[in-house]
């Protein structure tokens, strides 16, 4: 039996030599052994007969059980000469084989290679025996021992060097591979979970890890190109109004409650948009801060799009062609077990789900539709959807209401209100996100859908809920932005008044200086809506994270502790009864993750600290959720397999990415930046920074070219061409699909044809068999000896037409091209041969 090791060895050997020329092959010595039987045939013949048919006496062959005389010869040859033939008098195993090789190969090579350098011996030395490792080692030793002796002169050194380098390279590759797998974070943790809960739970953690990696890059971008340069090279804290806490807030600027809300010193730091200065170039590096800020904002979005789409494409490639439904039952049978399951409870659930899926598909096969009480079902479904819509609308209104109320609070001053009023918006959003899915779950039990369809509906509804909430939040934020901008106008006016009064007051005392040293904390300033938006998002993320962790602790950990320890003294069985342990909700968790990411994308432009916060959150989540899953969750009742849903999640991520970049881009493009804070202060629009850079830092012609390129006359045709290209690609892909379908159909008809042909051949063979049998009957009648004994006859060539090309028993035949004939398979064959 060829084991996996030898497949790889053979294949590798073949690959290394696939480019050899004829001259090189001439220098190879070939060897094989052959087995000659003296008085019988060792091979076996397949006979085709119908199940009910009896064996024709003439088709069977006798076998001699003992005293089979046979001779085994071993020989080798190469292009130039023949080697000696050796009589093998023992059973050929790897040890005797090596002995023969050692005794004869070397002298043979020495005689052959006098005039030319020989490269090696044939791959026939690779043994194919079950005691694989020892054998392999021996043969390797042998080759190593004689390797040097086989080459002569110049070629020898070169060859030895080549072999050495090859070995070194392979070792390096292996070490590198080891290093790389060791570098993948949390690999062992995820594998442990995978072996307990199956691949679907693990797919969540793999997704989480993927998100972590992406956020790491985003964090690197904002941290390295925006936050660090500003902190190191920008003007220090307290040097100008936008970098100083105003006098009125200074008293409580260091309080924990204020910092927790990202006010006070946290607000006037690199964490938020408002702190950045509009100086064009900072530090000795002449770092273009505003430009860098803008480009990082754009780059974050561009990078995210690229990564998501690339991952989607890779996933699609990997499971491409899985849409074929012609093997529905066979797949259920052969591939439904998840070998990773190592937890008995998961296994039990899996058994149950496999059984139901078998039964379901049998029922589906038997009767396609049974629509009893269709009206009731329809009514219930409509009702359920109505209820869900009510929920969605209610939650949307609630959020809008709360945000408006919070604005009222903010106008009146937050100091007069308690913790709840200050955090109302975030808490309401988090609570809605927590309880609405449960409500949807209850409602969906009305609908009586197939579980998989029910899951999709559930996912879609939660998606709609989150999206609705997010967008209400954004609309409310927009209102607030408009409010702030009106306030800004007032402040701007007041400012000129204030400045005038300042000058007027001081002109009398000191007329020489035009700038008066005023503490920057006292300068009146605008509301800076950008920082406000950033703060809102940061607060939202923090409260969302907190809610997630607290739900985890209460809903999973405390529940598990309660169930575990109160089970001893309770009226009913808690573990299997009502509260029981919680399941790990893969879809909900994935959705939470996706929406969290959406908020990061939306808010990252106004709060550069968001990616850092998110990295932190994901990092903690990884450990906390791994721990929670392993210690207090039970496996899901319905075990879904991970594949197939991967791209579904990715598609949702893409939708969210698109939807979250829309408002961000809208604000960047259409709302003028605040006049006294942020890197773009003093400009009409944020993107003017590009224009400015083009004018000042690039040669004149470049700006000209750019202005021509951005001319609508050029842009419009370009867009048109793009649309045409998309249309063209779409239509070609459609034709490819059609061609694919055609080919598939052709294959199917071919298959049918083959089947028919086979059937016809079988019928024909049957008829022939019948004839032959009749003939035998006749013959028997004729050949009956006077003693009444049957004479042996040569078997008729029955069924020879249908004899399969390769014997059934040797499964590996054809598995490896050029597989040398070995004693191994032959021995194997003898154990299961003679299937008469």
């Amino acid at each position, binding site marked *: 039996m060829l084991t*996996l*090791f030898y*497949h*790889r060895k053979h294949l590798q050997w073949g690959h290394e030599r696939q480019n050899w020329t004829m001259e090189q092959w001439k220098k190879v010595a070939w060897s094989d052994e052959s087995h000659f039987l003296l008085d019988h045939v060792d091979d076996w013949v397949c006979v085709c007969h119908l199940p009910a048919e009896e064996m024709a006496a003439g088709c069977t062959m006798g076998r001699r059980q003992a005293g089979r005389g046979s001779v085994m010869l071993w020989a080798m040859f190469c292009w130039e000469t023949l080697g000696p033939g050796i009589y093998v008098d023992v059973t050929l195993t790897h040890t005797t084989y090596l002995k023969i090789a050692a005794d004869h190969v070397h002298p043979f090579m020495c005689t052959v290679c006098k005039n030319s350098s020989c490269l090696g011996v044939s791959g026939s030395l690779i043994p194919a025996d*079950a*005691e*694989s*490792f020892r054998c*392999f*080692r021996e043969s390797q030793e042998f080759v190593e021992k004689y390797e040097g002796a086989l080459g002569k002169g110049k070629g020898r050194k070169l060859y030895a060097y080549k072999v050495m380098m090859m070995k070194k390279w*392979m*070792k390096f590759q*292996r070490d590198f*591979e*080891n290093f790389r*797998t*060791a570098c993948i974070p949390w690999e062992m943790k995820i594998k442990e979970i*995978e*072996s307990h809960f199956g691949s679907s739970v693990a797919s969540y953690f793999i997704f989480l890890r993927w998100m972590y990696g992406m956020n790491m890059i985003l964090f690197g971008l904002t941290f390295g190109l925006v936050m660090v340069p500003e902190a190191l090279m920008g003007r220090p804290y307290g040097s100008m109004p936008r970098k100083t806490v105003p006098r009125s807030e200074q008293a409580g600027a260091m309080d924990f409650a204020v910092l927790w809300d990202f006010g006070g010193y946290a607000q006037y730091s690199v964490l938020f948009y408002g702190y950045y200065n509009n100086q064009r170039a900072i530090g000795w590096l002449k770092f273009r801060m505003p430009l860098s800020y803008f480009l990082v904002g754009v780059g974050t979005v561009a990078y995210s799009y690229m990564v998501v789409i690339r991952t989607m494409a890779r996933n699609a490639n990997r*499971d491409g062609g*899985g849409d*074929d439904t012609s*093997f529905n*039952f*066979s*797949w259920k*049978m*052969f*591939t439904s*077990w*998840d*070998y*990773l*399951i*190592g*937890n*008995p409870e*998961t*296994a039990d659930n899996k*058994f*149950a789900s*496999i*059984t139901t899926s*078998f*039964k379901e598909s*049998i029922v589906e096969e*038997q009767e396609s539709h049974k629509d009893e009480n269709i009206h009731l079902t329809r009514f219930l479904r409509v009702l359920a959807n109505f209820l869900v819509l009510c929920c969605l609308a209610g939650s949307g209104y609630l959020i809008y209401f709360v945000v408006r109320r919070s604005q009222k609070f903010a106008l009146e001053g937050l100091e007069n209100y308690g913790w709840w009023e200050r955090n109302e918006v975030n808490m309401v959003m988090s609570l809605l996100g927590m309880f609405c899915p449960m409500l949807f779950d209850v409602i969906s039990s009305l609908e009586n859908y197939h579980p998989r369809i029910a899951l999709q509906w559930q996912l879609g509804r939660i998606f709609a809920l989150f999206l609705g909430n997010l967008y209400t939040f954004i609309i409310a934020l927009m209102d607030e932005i408009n409010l702030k901008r009106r306030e800004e106008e007032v402040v701007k006016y007041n400012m000129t008044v204030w400045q005038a009064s300042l000058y007027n007051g001081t002109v009398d005392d000191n007329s020489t200086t035009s700038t008066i040293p005023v503490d920057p904390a006292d300068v009146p300033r605008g509301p800076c809506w950008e920082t406000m938006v950033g703060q809102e998002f940061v607060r939202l993320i923090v409260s969302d994270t907190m809610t997630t962790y607290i739900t985890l602790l209460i809903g999973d950990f405390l529940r598990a502790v309660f169930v575990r320890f109160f089970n001893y003294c309770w009226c009913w069985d808690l573990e299997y009864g009502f509260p029981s342990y919680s399941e790990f909700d893969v879809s909900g968790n994935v959705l939470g993750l996706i929406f969290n990411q959406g908020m990061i994308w939306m808010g990252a432009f106004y709060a550069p600290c968001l990616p850092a916060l998110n990295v932190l959150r994901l990092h903690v989540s990884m450990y906390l959720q791994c721990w929670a899953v392993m210690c207090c969750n039970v496996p899901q009742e319905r075990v879904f*397999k*991970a*594949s*197939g849903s991967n791209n579904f999640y990715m598609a949702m991520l893409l939708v969210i990415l698109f939807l979250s970049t829309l408002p961000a881009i809208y604000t960047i493009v259409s709302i003028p930046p605040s006049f006294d804070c942020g890197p773009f202060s003093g400009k009409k629009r944020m993107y003017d920074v590009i224009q400015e850079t083009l004018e000042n830092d690039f040669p004149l012609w470049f700006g000209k070219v750019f202005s021509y390129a951005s001319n609508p006359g050029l842009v419009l045709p370009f867009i048109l061409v793009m649309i045409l290209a998309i249309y063209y690609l779409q239509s070609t892909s459609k034709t490819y699909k059609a061609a694919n379908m055609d080919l598939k159909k052709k294959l199917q008809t071919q*298959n049918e044809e083959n*089947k028919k042909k*086979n*059937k016809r051949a079988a019928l024909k063979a049957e008829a022939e068999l019948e004839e032959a049998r009749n003939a035998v009957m006749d013959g028997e009648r004729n050949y009956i000896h006077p003693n009444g004994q049957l004479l042996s006859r040569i078997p008729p060539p029955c069924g020879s037409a249908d004899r399969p090309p390769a014997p*059934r*028993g040797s*499964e590996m035949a054809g598995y490896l091209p050029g597989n040398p004939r070995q004693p191994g398979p032959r021995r194997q064959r003898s154990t*299961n041969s003679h*299937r008469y």
Partner: protein
Amino acid sequence: MGTTASQLPKDLLSEYQELTFLTKQEILLAHKRFTELVAKEDRNDPSPRVPMSKILTLPELKSNPFRKRICHVFSTSESKDGSLTFEDFLDLLSAFSDSATLEIKSHYAFRIFDFDDDGTLDRGDLEKLVNCLTGETDDTRLTPEEMKQLINNILEESDIDKDGTVNLSEFQHVISRSPDFVSSFKIVL
């Protein structure tokens, strides 16, 4: 734990890496797990054999319905008792590893499903396979009619040459189209 017995020599380790789809860490972990299973008196044996009953206590295999078949398929024991040497064990893990190809995986899957070792999946094999998949308890078991219907459907789909059995090439044909066979035919220590 024997201090010397639990260590793999360096050259052997690199050889195993060359011959399997496993990485260094996985081989070391496998070796650790394997030495834990070896009985005390066999510790000095250079290539100890672990009986099937012990292999089946591994949590990774404990709840697998095909655990006995897996041991039998990978065992090189002469007496066909399903006992494994360390190298057999590595062979098993290698076939079930992430990087093993579909061809190898489907080949071993076929041998695992071939309960009577005759090289084809006939009705008996398929029936045993269904029983393995639906569990031992009576309430999950299929009725004889359902079983018959199911096996008929399977043969209808995958038995291309209509000989009443599924052979290796038919099996691989079916498996190679399946989207999630490779991701689920895995065992990780």
